[in-house]
């Protein structure tokens, strides 16, 4: 046969680099459509390139020894706030012109506008103790506008303390973000409530509700109940905290006033109640309750009265969350078809729709603009199944083809759970345990496209809930 020598001649042919290149190009072309599912418009990467901003260290004023400490805190906080805002391309410290301009007369804008700094905006100012007050003068200048560069000029005055320095930096950062970020208020003054675990998981663990600033600073306990308290949810006006706490009748919802620093009455009878959720007007609470042995979604007023049941499927219906934009819809988790799945319904219980198609879903959180839900999902749930529990995002309104766009935000990082939206909708905080152990949970934050991940807490922190403003 003459085909045999033909084949033999071909086989020893070397694997040419050019062919390898072609393969790589092909692989890249194939890979592209897979990533194309990530084109949900969330507002973070909206096509407009990020504004390049230079953040100069503030100039110390006065000779008080404490000032340099406060200034250091202020500088670090302001830089971190702007760097993590998700809308800026921040100039790294090494590319900054030397010197610390403290006022408009001291700044040389052409230095910032030219290479290598090449900034569009410059934040600068002065900080110091004057007359027993910590005073900060903050400026934001448009580096390319030599004639009328001033965008913001603000003075802040607080009692001198480490915390004040941080809070002033947050407020100045929020001012800048509000002005440059399309009118969406910044989140630097927002808070996160979370569950802090102490003790051993298998024997004497206690869980208290803690509060921290949005950047992980200032972590401190709110409750001292010595039992297990979970699922903190802060009211839209930041005045009350609802959570579930283990007592004589099992887990029941407790209400804590953040203004009065004491518990308020929230009677829900002798049955279990859990996973509270505030209506956006702050007048009602949705929660899961099991007065008859089966968890259903209920809604009541803030006194725990006038409760009404809005689901009726035996089994488990938990983790409600209102559409914060309209208050007219509720997303929740139900096991009516087997393993727990994500559902939405109108807040009167009508129009129930299932959004996920399998696996094990938990912890839905609705974006502030009402367009997205983020949730934890173990798509291939089951003993021995591959993959882990990750954070996903789904577009609540169905797309042109009638399907729902779903994007996976975390990948292969261990167990992720409890995603919660920031008030500006640009960030998502969540809990992660890289080895899956409950006591190794810690709280992270990321942009809503899954980038810029960074931890906010150490181990033993779980179930974050971001304040509404």
């Amino acid at each position, binding site marked *: 046969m003459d085909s045999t020598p033909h084949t033999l001649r071909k086989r020893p042919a070397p694997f040419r680099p050019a062919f390898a290149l072609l393969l790589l190009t092909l692989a890249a072309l194939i890979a592209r459509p897979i990533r194309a599912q990530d084109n949900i418009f969330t507002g973070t990467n909206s096509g407009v390139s990020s504004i390049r901003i230079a953040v100069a260290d503030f100039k110390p004023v006065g000779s008080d020894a404490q000032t340099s400490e406060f200034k250091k805190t202020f500088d670090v906080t302001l830089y971190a706030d702007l760097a993590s805002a998700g809308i800026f391309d921040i100039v790294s410290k090494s590319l900054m012109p030397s010197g610390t301009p403290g006022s408009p007369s001291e700044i040389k804008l052409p230095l910032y506008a030219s290479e290598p700094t090449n900034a569009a905006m410059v934040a600068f100012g002065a900080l110091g103790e004057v007359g027993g007050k910590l005073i900060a003068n903050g400026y934001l200048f448009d580096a390319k506008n030599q004639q009328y560069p001033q965008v913001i000029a603000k003075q802040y005055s607080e009692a001198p303390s480490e915390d004040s320095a941080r809070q002033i930096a947050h407020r100045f950062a929020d001012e800048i973000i509000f002005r440059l970020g399309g009118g969406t208020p910044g989140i630097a003054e927002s808070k996160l409530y979370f569950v802090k675990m102490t003790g051993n998981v298998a024997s004497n663990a206690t869980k208290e509700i803690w509060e921290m600033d949005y950047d992980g600073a200032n972590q401190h306990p709110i409750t001292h109940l010595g039992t297990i308290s979970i699922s903190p949810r802060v009211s839209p006006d930041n005045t009350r905290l609802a959570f579930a706490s283990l007592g004589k009748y099992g887990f029941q919802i407790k209400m804590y006033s953040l203004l009065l620093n004491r518990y308020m009455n929230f009677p829900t009878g002798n049955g279990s109640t859990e996973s509270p959720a505030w209506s956006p007007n702050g007048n009602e609470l949705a929660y899961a309750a099991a007065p008859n042995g089966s968890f259903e979604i209920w809604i009541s007023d803030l006194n725990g009265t006038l409760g009404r049941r809005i689901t009726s499927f035996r089994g488990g219906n938990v983790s409600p969350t209102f559409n914060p934009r309209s208050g007219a819809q509720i997303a929740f988790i139900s096991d009516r078809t087997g393993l727990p799945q994500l559902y939405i319904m109108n807040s009167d219980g009508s129009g129930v729709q299932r959004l996920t198609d399998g696996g094990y879903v*938990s912890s839905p959180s609705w974006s502030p603009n009402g367009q997205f839900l983020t949730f934890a999902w173990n798509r291939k749930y089951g003993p021995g199944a591959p993959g882990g529990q990750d954070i996903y995002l789904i577009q609540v309104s169905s797309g042109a083809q009638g399907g729902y766009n779903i994007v996976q935000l975390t990948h292969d990082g261990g167990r992720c759970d409890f995603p919660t939206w920031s008030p500006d909708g640009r960030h998502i905080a969540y809990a992660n345990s890289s080895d899956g152990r409950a006591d190794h949970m810690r709280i992270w934050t990321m942009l809503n496209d899954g980038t810029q991940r960074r931890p906010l807490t150490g181990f033993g922190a779980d179930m974050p809930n971001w304040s509404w403003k």
Partner: protein
Amino acid sequence: MNFTGSIPSHSTTVRSLRSALILAIALGMVTGCHKTASSKTAADSTAPAAAQLPPAPTATLVAEPLAVDLGQSVVLNWRTTNATDVTIDGLGSVSPNGTQTVSPSSSTNFHITAKGVGGTTEANIRVTVRVPVAPTVPADSSDSANGSNMGSETVFHENVQDIFFDYDSFELNAEGRASAIKAAAYLVAHPDIRVIIGGYCDDRGSAEYNLALGENRANSAKTALVNAGVATARIRVVSFGKEKQFCAEDTESCWQQNRRAQFSLDR
């Protein structure tokens, strides 16, 4: 005097002695012995005394198994020879050879009587039935002083044992149903005990959803107790979800220990 009877199969000893005294001892052994007798040996040994009489009947009775739990059945198997009328106490008149399946409600001595021209032969077999005994409440002075009659913690946990569940399930499996029946029997016998059923889940899955699963598990256990006669008012259900782990390893055996309905005294 009755010279009939079956002889145990240790027949070499019996044959070598051939005395009426030894025969009497051998007869004495018959009642308590269920070994198969050999009719040939019996005929040999009784030959001098019974030469003028028709051969005496023989009877053997065996039971398989000899010990059962309440509700299980036993197969009785009997063989007789030279008998005209065979009766077993409780079963009445039966055929000379036969088997019968019985379910005694308590330990029973089955007694077979074989009557024939040559005399009457009897044999016995004892079947032990293990009946779950409701333990009596120990007269615990400290409890009485408190005015409660809850019994001791130890005895409670011996009789009311945790019910374990399959993966992501709140239905009782066969083992769970057996535990529930045993627990219910104890609780019915001790009407003063109030019980808390805690529902627990393994470490996997969502904290909030697992509270619902734990609630369902505790309620399944409660339903089983109520169906077995325990008053609803005596039972309180608390779901702990995955918040109170019994152990914290990522192994199936640990997960299994965490997937449970746990009973405790509601003092």
